[in-house]
């Protein structure tokens, strides 16, 4: 069942690089990551690639396959024509380290800026009570494996480097939504979402949702509801008037 697959892989580092052509064996049932591993074991032992679980659970092996942001471990070879050349390039939004490995520290920095879970002060461990239907909303977002494909594909930062400081990206705007919808969280992150994390820059093109390997409805279930909560606070005329009259 095996065949010789044509692979074109970007190789290089921060100073530049280019696409290299390889012919590698591919077998039934394999995924792109299997073939990249075979390339490492037989032709390019120093080919840099990140991966961990090879089961779509850790979100390490993000790359762009024929230009589409994907997990290499969840992209089956059977989805390509055997004559097709498969091009594998590093994710584009983050700085290159080497070959398919990029510097994703942007994401960890953004993670640190989101105000953390804030439980009610009077609740002791073991006393937490929540209904399944209430936890499910945030549970959907907690399925996130942090592959950063949504961060990579989002045009707010993909095409505009200068937005990076002002925009947390879909993953961390979703984290804000997750905490806002957490049944026991008592903090209010609505102003911060808009003013510090760039929620307003998102114009709901749903690219993040399309690339999410966990099929999380990032736009519909996290970002739009979050925008509505901000609008409800900021732009409701009665709330606005109340704030004007009774400003602390």
């Amino acid at each position, binding site marked *: 069942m095996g065949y010789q697959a044509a692979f074109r892989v970007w190789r290089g580092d921060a100073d530049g690089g280019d696409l290299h052509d390889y012919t590698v064996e591919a*077998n039934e049932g394999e995924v792109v990551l299997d073939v990249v591993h075979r390339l*490492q074991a037989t032709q390019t032992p120093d080919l840099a690639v990140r991966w961990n679980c090879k089961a779509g659970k850790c979100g390490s092996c993000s790359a762009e396959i024929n230009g589409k942001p994907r997990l290499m471990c*969840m992209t089956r070879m059977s989805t390509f024509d055997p004559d097709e050349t498969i091009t594998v390039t590093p994710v584009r939004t983050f700085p290159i380290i080497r070959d398919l490995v990029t510097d994703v520290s942007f994401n960890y920095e953004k993670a640190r800026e989101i105000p953390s879970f804030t439980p009610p002060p009077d609740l002791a461990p073991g006393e937490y009570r929540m209904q399944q239907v209430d*936890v499910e909303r945030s549970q959907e977002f*907690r399925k996130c494996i942090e592959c950063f494909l949504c961060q990579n594909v989002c045009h707010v930062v993909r095409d505009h480097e200068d937005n990076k400081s002002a925009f947390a990206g879909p993953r961390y705007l979703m984290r804000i939504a997750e905490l806002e919808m957490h049944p026991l969280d008592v903090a209010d992150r609505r102003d911060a979402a808009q003013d510090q994390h760039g929620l307003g820059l998102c114009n709901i093109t749903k690219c993040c949702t399309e690339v999410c390997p966990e099929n999380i409805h990032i736009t519909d279930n996290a970002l739009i509801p979050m925008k509505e909560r901000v609008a409800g606070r900021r732009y409701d005329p009665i709330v606005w008037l109340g704030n004007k009259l009774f400003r602390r």
Partner: protein
Amino acid sequence: MPEVERHEYDVVVIGAGGAGLRAVIEARQRGLRVAVVCKSLFGKAHTVMAEGGCAAAMGNANPHDSWQVHFQDTMRGGKFLNNWRMAELHAREAPDRVWELETYGALFDRTPDGRISQRNFGGHTYPRLAHVGDRTGLELIRTMQQKIVSLQQEDYAAHGDYEARVKVFAECTITELLVDESGRIAGAFGYWRESGRFVLFDAPAVVIATGGIGKSYKVTSNSWEYTGDGHALALRAGAALINMEFIQFHPTGMIWPPSVKGILVTEGVRGDGGVLKNSEGERFMFSYIPPVFKGQYAETEEEADRWYEDQENNRRTPDLLPRDEVARAINSEVKAGRDSPHGGVYLDIASRMPAAEIVRRLPSMHHQFLELADVDITKEPMEVGPTCHYVMGGIEVDPDTAAASVPGLFAAGECSGGMHGSNRLGGNSLSDLLVFGRRAGIGAADYVEGLTERPRATDAAIDAAARTALSPFDPAAPDSAENPYTLHAELQQSMHDLVGIIRRADEIERALAELATLRERIRNVAVEGNRQFNPGWHLALDLRNMLLVCECVARAALLRTESRGGHTRDDHPSMDAEWRRTLLVCRTDGGDRSIPDVTVTPERQQPMRPDLLALFDIDELGKYYTDEELADHPGRRS
């Protein structure tokens, strides 16, 4: 001196999985400065792959549950070889550790009255596993990762620096522990994977939380990081490993297509009602209830099916026997020719519950099979077979403090040994890493606070560590240079074929001979390219750890002439009470610095505290213990 980036910390935690992160949280909350060093990005550790749940006797699903029952189940699962004090602490403290996670923001699935839901699992008398669908490990690691972020935010507020007291050194590999002249821990040496530059941590305490050794086997559920680094680091620093012959083969790994072979299928499938069947459609587990568990499991399909609804009046299904029993049963069915088309057995949930319910309870299993194997588990059965999953053996530690025999060295989670005896119950791993991760953090903090002066690493040791790390760029015999990927594949094949799920003396001896050859060849391992993010070089350095650990496994497996838990000897098929109280202790003894020689010594296990022993019925203990050991049991005296 080589060029080395130097950092000073109070505690260095190696490994950022559940155990490591829990230790970090504890040591930081004691006010210490902590570095956490991990081979992957932060939040990618193998804990994310834990699926089914975290065992804790909270009694939410069945009020009869208690720490005593959890303790008994754990000891039974480990065939009474467990370190009973670890099993006791684990059972007593697990509920608090789970509740604590909720205060960090974790969102477990709920019972109708709003408490944490608990699921059935193999070997657990009551539904006991706190879970989030089938992605519980992800929830644990993300929760603790986010807790660490919140602690960093506190530090930012206090000091203007997120990393004032906790810093994550991601994609950084520790290659050597450093000790001072008197043998105390003085620090750790490693390299940044990205740049290949060396890094040195001056620290009086090191917590090893590096997980397991599964990448030494060909078919495994483990990720690439599981190369036995912590086991090998501890050995080389002078600590001992115990129970290394006990390796858990999880009964249900994917077997088709070949590229996914070994990927885990959660035991939650069976906990929630899934059943094992052979090619004749027979639920074969009823034929495999071993004598020690006779009477504890349902003997008819009808009773087994009633048990899901009514646990008071029925016994549990033998599909939920401990993992070692189920793995052996599957192995026997396959050998008897009743295997599925790709050499496994069927795991059927499709015929047991509505499709929507399956997708709700087991979303990642549904996704994984659909995406990787074109199998819709709501419509057809899965094909499964055993996969190397967990090493029960590990660094010998003091149960209360998680301290190893080397002063300043601590270990928690899979890389420590004793807690699970000869076989771990499903769900006891996530609780283990919470309970003992915390204890290791406390142990390390107490140790550091009790020091009057800090041990210093010698320059000679630092030089030697750097030379060893660079040796693959300059092999001793360039003409016979070895490819690290080839050596790794051969090592995995040897362990798979010769020290696998069923073992025999002659095969283990052959494995030892092959390992001896590999040991020589690893000296000539050579890598291409430079030090910048070079996977070939990284593997070359991990190989020596795998080899050292494999020698421990094989030597201990050869000595233990009985079958128990995760060690099955075809030539010694029965369990032997004398061996129950014997631990095989691995240490290093001279030889090469980089891959020292391994010795294995039988040592006597501490007898169980009488009040704990009295929890068990004398008839049950009689199946495991020698008469002499039971002379003082209340059941014998009366």
